[in-house]
């Protein structure tokens, strides 16, 4: 079982990296790039087959370490199988 954890800055927090990427995209002619937010994708391979328990544990991981909830928000997906 795997978990895909997405960590991004909260909408209220300025994202200088996203701002820079947006500027670059627009200078390349991608004018439709109205807003860009840069975040992280964390892939976890889990040694468990209990989906409910996996969700609990991943949420705890996010709260403890993977995200800084002062500035960041997270969401995750639990998917079957091992890393491709």
């Amino acid at each position, binding site marked *: 079982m795997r978990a895909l954890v997405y960590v991004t800055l909260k909408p209220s927090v300025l994202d200088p990296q996203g701002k*820079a990427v947006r*500027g*670059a995209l627009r*200078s390349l002619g991608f004018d439709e790039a109205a807003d860009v937010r840069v975040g992280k994708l964390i892939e976890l391979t889990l040694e468990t087959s209990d989906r409910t328990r996996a969700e609990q544990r991943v949420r705890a991981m996010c709260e403890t370490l993977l995200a800084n909830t002062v500035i960041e928000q997270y969401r995750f997906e639990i998917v079957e199988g091992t890393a491709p």
Partner: protein
Amino acid sequence: MSEPAITPEVIRQHGLTGEEYARARQVLGREPNHTELGIFSAMWSEHCSYKSSKIHLRKLPVSGPRVVQGPGENAGVVDIGGGEVAVFKMESHNHPSFIEPVQGAATGVGGILRDVFTMGARPIASLNALRFGLPEAPRMTYLMGGVVHGISLYGNAIGVPTVGGEVWFHPSYNGNILVNAFALGVARRERIFLGKAEGPGNPILYFGSKTGRDGIHGATMASDVFDSEKEARRPTVQVGDPFTEKLLLEACLELMASDVLVGIQDMGAAGLTCSTLEMAGRAGTGVVIDLAKVPRRESGMTPYEVMLSESQERMLMVVRRGREEEALAVVRKWDLDASVIGEVTSDGFARILESGRPVAAVPAAPLSDASPVYDRPVREPASFKARRRLDLAGVPLPSDLGGVLDRLLSSPNLCSREWVYRQYDHTVRAGTVVRPGSDAAVVRPVSTSAKGIAMASDCNPRFCLLDPYLGAAHAVAESARNVACAGARPIAATDCLNFGNPENPEIMWQLARAVEGLAEACRRLGTPIVSGNVSLYNETDGQAIAPTPTVAMVGLMEQASLSVTSWFKDAGDVVVLLGQTREELGATEYLAAIHGREEGAPPGLDLALEAAVQETVIRAVERGLIRSAHDVSEGGLAVALAECCISGCDALGTGWAPRGAAIDLPAGPREDALLFGETASRVILTLREKDLPAFEEIVRGLPDRRPPVRVIGRVGGESLDVRRDGERLLSRPVDLLHRMWHSVFPGLMKP
């Protein structure tokens, strides 16, 4: 798994000629298997064997009273007094940086730092000499941004200040950028470690990162020209991990403080192959290692792949028998992977096993001793003499000389480098006395020392293109002059020789002539070359780079607190020109940038005068007489004066406010040669007026040659005014010059 058969096609893919393959068979006394072929291919690659350059490199002066270790080890070692030594080297990471600039440059920094701390020295400073194609060339601003980012990623994280270097643009680098990284460390003289596998029976330890498939055949790639067909053979990009390297650094220094260590070498080009064979070769011993014990990051790797992997941040060490647990404990404290993978033997063979099964056996010393040495044909290029002729009558004198100064100061080759070095941590370790932006950086060797070590890198590839001998000699002279301008005495140098395809006799001629020029200048200035690196095949689709023998010079001063920066200090200070301006416009930045002509002979170089100029500056700084010292180079006197006026002030407007100056030059050469000619061996000094007599006394007291000295003006006012015998040549407000000079890179690099 069965190994591929050795066919002529396989041999060719390994970059070995028929003759080299025959020699390999002779060394072995039989046909090599596939793994052994890989070993020969790596060890005899240009990158590892120096087969094309070796006979020329022998001409370089490599010894001197301060030299503790010359070329041939991981880095050179020079005595700096008080029981301390400086350990330094410069190395190229050109090809990887062109493929992937961030990781290519980052791993270049990582590699050179490992060379230094492998010798037992704590790295205290880095320089980076960068050459790019024209900013408008495809990918070029991307490459430049990536390289600078990669250097900052690695150097900042590991905590070694990047205190200087060069950035230079020329169309010959459009398809081959150059990333030459220099690192310097300091150690106690008696605690220097060498890459020798001594003492049969002593265990061999592997430690650092795990081994993966990255960078297999990096060494052979660095020994070949680029073309689109070879894309497929490009190895996977090596990714640098400065955090692991920091742990490796601390683990090594901790191990070296004990007495368990016999010899140590990092795994750079050709990884495990090069490190095992070189360590055994230098000691005249043999080694046996079992690849099954090598920590791996990927599964299913063949012995061939493990032997040739260039995964970063790995080390090999030989420890005293029975002491391996002590060594492993230190390594594990730093959370690094470690394993005893074999031991030193006495039969002279490198025996490679996989779970006890022999997979390769090659004689260590003969493999390096019998490595091919080529005396490749050289030929002076047909255009050489013609290109050196410059008829000044055909060069129109610009009517607006102030406008020429504006254009030069706002060109990529002469503008401020602040955009680059702001991204480098240049103050970490709390030892940077003179920061980037001056002629040379100065750092203190250890935190409790009053001494200073100055360093600067230099090469003018346009000079080298038009005269490789003279250009290389200028690289030595200018880097030494830069160090002297900080107030330090140049003591030794390292070089990084970047050229095109050595199989082309005209390129080989450039290399041979450049080495002769380096040798002559180093000999005359008393600065031996103690380490270095050769990077050949820097060409794409038949277009070779301008010959680029980069020199990094190291200088020593007893009192770092006396060090001097290049910018004007206070109004009223007297401006002195040391040296004389001749009518020399050949190979200048002015001729190229303003007239679009890359021709003419580079300026002459009188090494006795050069030595006298440097001696004057060093003595005057030691006496505390000098307020600023700046060498006159690209862009000539006008650009150097402008830099003196504005370079103490950063882009935010802090530091020393721009200072004006009123300058009156003696008549002589035509106006553009007077202002923009690049006559060598000139330095702009400022002194307090009251100190002039003491300064003149120093010049009179020089033992041999005395350099021409002339008071040419005074610091003060809001503009740089330059006259010739009272007649105004140009006048520019310094605030305007300051703004133009700082605006170039931020403009180019805007996302």
